């Protein structure tokens, strides 16, 4: 609680909200519960689930999906969608492999990384321009972009896979195996979580992202350049998607045109499970990460429990809907969809 003296001479109390209320208002509150519940569930059902070896591989999957999900959530909080993130994921991965193979000079893979990220960022800019200048829903813009990117990739590669033969600097820095199968990608994921949490909650830009997604007209009335905020968010989202693609490619060492197909919906589902509102203005990066972690757990946990891996999608579908309902109930009537 802070107390200050007002100009009227009376003391003004500013109460820090009680813990219970603050928890309820955290977008990721429901996701924490769901995460713990599933964690316990799989640990009981699948004996080998709770082992360091498995948990690190869960984190590996989580990191790759999670980096994309952070971007997707960020843009959703800003009030827009990006369905082309999986296209961007594949395109950046493909570009990285192709350029890495061509750039035989020192630090070739590093240059390839940044060029590929630059192209992803550019795709985000194009998405933003089309959406804002063309005044069409980003759902449509990015659906088009997703199909476009995927088609271009198929056209160029003819459906053939390409293996990575460039230098090992970037692959090692991104996904080189460390002790207990920990990988650097876990660390990068953590860094991005911290960075984007900071941006959203502790910077001027973050405040404007929430406002733009929460109520565009109000943000505009208060002098926020809404289009600029959206454009930057589109670019951040696309760049993160590209980065997650490069991380995954570094692990697989092979790129093909159908890489990451359907992953955009996984990322959006993870965002929703993590408590981000589809209508914008509300959500968190921690929630996004937890959403991705839930997906990662389900993916390996089901297999370890002996269920065919096809069940993954069905299970995630149920979790998604239950999570959406649970999030709403937890928050109460003040934060409707």
């Amino acid at each position, binding site marked *: 609680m802070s107390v200050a003296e007002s*100009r009227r001479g009376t003391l003004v109390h500013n109460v820090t*909200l009680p813990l219970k209320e603050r928890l309820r208002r955290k977008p990721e509150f429901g996701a924490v519960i769901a995460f713990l519940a599933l964690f316990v569930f799989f640990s009981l059902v699948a004996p080998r689930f709770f082992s360091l070896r498995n948990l690190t591989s869960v984190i590996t999957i989580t990191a790759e999906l999670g980096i994309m999900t952070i971007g997707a959530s960020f843009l959703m909080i800003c009030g827009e969608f990006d369905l082309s993130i999986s296209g961007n994921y594949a395109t950046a991965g493909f570009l990285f492999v192709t350029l890495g193979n061509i750039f035989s000079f020192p630090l070739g893979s590093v240059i390839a990384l940044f060029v590929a990220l630059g192209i992803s960022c550019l795709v985000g800019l194009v998405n933003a321009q089309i959406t804002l200048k063309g005044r069409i829903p980003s759902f449509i813009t990015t659906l088009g972009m997703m199909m476009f990117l995927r088609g271009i990739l198929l056209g160029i590669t003819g459906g053939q896979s390409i293996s990575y033969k460039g230098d090992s600097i970037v692959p090692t820095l991104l996904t080189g195996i460390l002790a207990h199968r920990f990988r650097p990608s876990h660390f990068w994921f953590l860094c991005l979580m911290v960075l984007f949490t900071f941006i959203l909650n502790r910077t001027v830009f*973050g405040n404007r992202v929430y406002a733009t997604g*929460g109520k565009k007209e109000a943000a505009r*009335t208060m002098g926020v350049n809404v289009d600029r905020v959206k454009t930057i968010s589109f670019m951040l989202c696309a760049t993160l998607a590209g980065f997650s693609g490069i991380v995954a490619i570094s692990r697989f060492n092979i790129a093909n045109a159908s890489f990451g197909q359907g992953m955009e919906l996984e990322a959006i589902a993870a965002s929703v499970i993590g408590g981000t509102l589809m209508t914008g203005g509300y959500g968190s990066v921690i929630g996004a990460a937890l959403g991705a972690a839930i997906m990662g757990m389900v993916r390996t946990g089901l297999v370890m429990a002996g269920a065919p891996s096809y069940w993954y999608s069905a299970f995630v579908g149920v979790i998604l809907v239950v999570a959406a309902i649970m999030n709403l109930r937890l928050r109460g009537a003040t934060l409707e969809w």
Partner: protein
Amino acid sequence: MDREEPLVRMGNIHKSFGVVKALRGVDFEVRENEVVALLGDNGAGKSTLIKILSGVFPPDQGSIYLRGKRIEFASPEEARIAGIETVHQDLSLVEKMSIARNFFLGKEPTRRIGPLAVLDVKKMNQDSQLAVSDIGMRIRSTEELVSCLSGGQRQAIAIGRAVYFGAKILIMDEPLRNLSIREQRVVLNLIAEAKKKGSSVIFITHNVYHACSVADRFVLLDNGVKIGEVIAGEKTPEEIAECIATGCMVGGEKG
């Protein structure tokens, strides 16, 4: 009446929308630290007049002076910078954000930590709480979401914010609409408090009784023409209501 130059003077304002003549040669002024109620029936031109003043659109004819200096606003932004702030309870607050975050939206304070400009959350909470309590509204915590607040509390945030950022003139279009009777009283009280803090207030209303409780002066519009002005206390609310209903001043000094 004193000879002092008013804070704002609008002279001979005309505005048409197609064939509809919304305003036909209206003169309007607001003095320092004065509450003016704009009264009139639907379609009288009240909203058009204040939208011209707040820069939403320019007049077809006529001029606006701010402290004797001729001004032309190209946008609401410019009017705001000049200190003319329109207070919308619905249009300027984001429900899913906290009071403190709303309060400083667009003018967020930061402090430097090394190379980083970090939101000064402490200042945001403290200043917004002080500003809102200064105009006589109690809120439990500035961390509360705006969606939890009543209509009157929301107006307090919007007014407190405008006063805090130095608005000279607050414009309120039907601030009492959709409010409960208790909340209406709260908002009327806010208007009085904003005046005490040195601001001038222009507010539009249908309801003469509301106007009478806080306004220093009443300006009556009918069908795009100013039909009269009344200083508080000169006429009873019943007489003013009669003027609005009939569209003419009865026994007034101006016709």
